[in-house]
């Protein structure tokens, strides 16, 4: 058994009903829990990008990718290694702040993390922050002291660093080109 680690899989798919369940069922069938999932349209409104994070060893991540590539609505797919990609998620966090003193303290912390205060009320503050999971977790941990009322994450989205894109010709892709009708 190889080392289990987090894999980021980016998939371009047809922006159609049912495609997401087709993609996600491949993970559940193999017993993989999706750690994070983010879906949105791309510059082409007919195409959506799904970013999936899953804990698996390299072999299984590769097999899963192969299975995903077979789906007709899948245009392209790339495994994004963490060291070569930018990964971000948006965190919304509502924290209890009943006194001016507490509010100030939270605002200071928010400044350090470059988080924005997006809503203020008498009893609570809502913060928004963009970062990868280590940053969002750090903020979350610190704010635990103040009692977190509610929390929502978008899930990680990722792009490769540099000029390369998901549609780039790569060695892996090259192998696919001669065996691509794996329909």
């Amino acid at each position: 058994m190889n080392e289990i680690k987090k894999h980021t899989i980016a998939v371009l798919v047809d922006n159609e009903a049912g495609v997401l369940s087709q993609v996600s069922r491949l993970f559940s069938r193999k017993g993989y829990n999706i750690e994070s999932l983010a879906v949105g349209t791309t510059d082409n409104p007919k195409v959506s990008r799904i970013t999936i994070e899953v804990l698996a060893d390299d072999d299984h991540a590769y097999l899963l990718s192969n299975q995903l590539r077979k789906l007709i609505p899948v245009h392209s797919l790339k495994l994004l290694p963490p060291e070569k990609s930018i990964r971000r998620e948006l965190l919304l966090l509502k924290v209890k702040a009943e006194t001016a003193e507490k509010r100030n303290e939270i605002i200071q912390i928010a400044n350090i993390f470059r988080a924005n205060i997006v809503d203020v009320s008498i009893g609570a503050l809502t913060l928004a922050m963009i970062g990868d999971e280590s940053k969002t977790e750090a903020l979350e941990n610190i704010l635990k002291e103040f009692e977190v009322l509610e929390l929502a994450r978008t899930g990680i989205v990722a792009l490769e660093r540099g000029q390369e894109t998901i549609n780039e010709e790569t060695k892996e892709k090259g192998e696919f080109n001669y065996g691509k009708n794996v329909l």
Partner: protein
Amino acid sequence: MMTGAKILIECLLEQGVDTVFGYPGGTILNVYDELYKYEGRIKHILTAHEQGASHAADGYARSTGKVGVCFVTSGPGATNITTGIATAYMDSSPVVFISCNVGEDLIGKDSFQEVDITGITMPITKCNYLVRDVNKLADIVREAFAIARSGRPGPVFIDILQNVSAQEADYTPVPQSQHFTTGRLGALMERSSHNFEAPTPDEDDIDKLVEMIRNSEKPLLICGGGVVRGRAHKEFLEFAEKIDSPVAITVMGGGGFQGRNPLTTGMVGMHGSQASNMACDGCDLLIAVGCRFSNRVALDPESFASQAKIVQIDIDRAEINKNVKTDHHIIGDAKKVLERLNSKIEQQEHDEWKKYVFSFKTETEYEEGGEALTPKQITKTIANLLPQDTIVATDVGQHQMWAIQHFHYDYPGQLLTSGGFGAMGFGLGAAIGAKVGNPEKTVIHVTGDGSFRMNCNELCTEQYYDIPVITFIFNNGVLGMVRQWQTLIKDKRYSQTNLDRGPDFVKLAEAYGLKGRRVATVVELEDAIKEAVSWGHGYVIDCAIDMDEMVKPMVAGGSHITKFIVC
């Protein structure tokens, strides 16, 4: 302008479909109404049960190489064919299943006979469609057929809303040759991710394998289902003779390599011959063509062919390294890959290795039972009296293994068996479909009493359309394969495997308007076969065998391939 139902039928004609298996119902009424008007151009076979129709369409597809078509109604009609779809999926058989769902105004409201069949069939189809717009119908049907037959073939499901079948749209006929350049398919072809043409193998990969073959002293070939689906039997034969290698055949590979060829070591895997399994363990180069190393072949993936370099040739990228780690692979259509290999490799000789492999038995010798029938006597008698090109459709269990071990298959589509999914009740429907698709050939249905009881209702289809299939029941009064496991693994605790009950299969055949006979000796069996042939209609031969007959050899699941628990 045409209704959706008429467009559907026109699209089937575009594909050259002349036979449909199915069962009508409320939501698919419009389609059947059109079918009525097209009588004479499309033949419809009405089965007793939707499951029978699904297996018949599958059997038709496997035996003819064409795409099978099956119509059902919504709800229970659709769920009844799920076993048939899964069977076709596991064995890569090209079938297009078409159902109609309730109308747009009723969908999602738990209406009468409504079910989310596209959701249900998602994991057991190559892809499926819910058609909500009549303008997209023709394009979707074209795409469905192309996907079903291309690459690694498989089932595709189209669910059409009832209102779509009634709505009208413009329809322009498009000849099949232009499907890939127009509409949805055209758009799909422009994407880099998918291609419908069989991939041309990579020359570097071919060269690497040629070098590996030259360096090998003990090669072994595995003939898998891909050789059958790719109709690559001629190229495979040339390849095997050129590299002078023994050939082990999987269940799905039956017909991909001549069963009588001196290079055949017989079946491989759980019930594989000693020669096949020993060769697997002893070879230094194992080349698997169109084989996914299922757990019935590579029983223990870790120790499987542990001394060998394993090479996988497959059209499906996702099969590479899925079950067994390979040393080299070639992605491509079996036919094209083998053609390239044949053109590059020179004649090899492996006499010593062959001598070793064939010192083991390629077929289990059973004791001759004298007067009483044994499984081998039944298969021998059948083979003696019926033509060599007889199509054999089996169900699942002991009789299936005997039929695969002891009949010799010569061409793809001669053996129809539910190898991957193992669906009992597959055989009779498949035999009907095969006979409809191959009226000039003799078609037999080999079954057990347990399997036959599951879908014997299709005898009425046989009778009504006069489809002369001869059914051979290996009747041991027990669920033989499970009983065999209970004998060997469960200390003879025969839990719920006793099938000592009705009906009388001969009377059953007669009740359906067919003939039947119960036989207990070789002479009686010979007489019955002769009568069945001369009678020329559906016939059931109920062969009494002993309940303790076993399929030999056997290796338990998960253990080393040469660890026979019976041989």
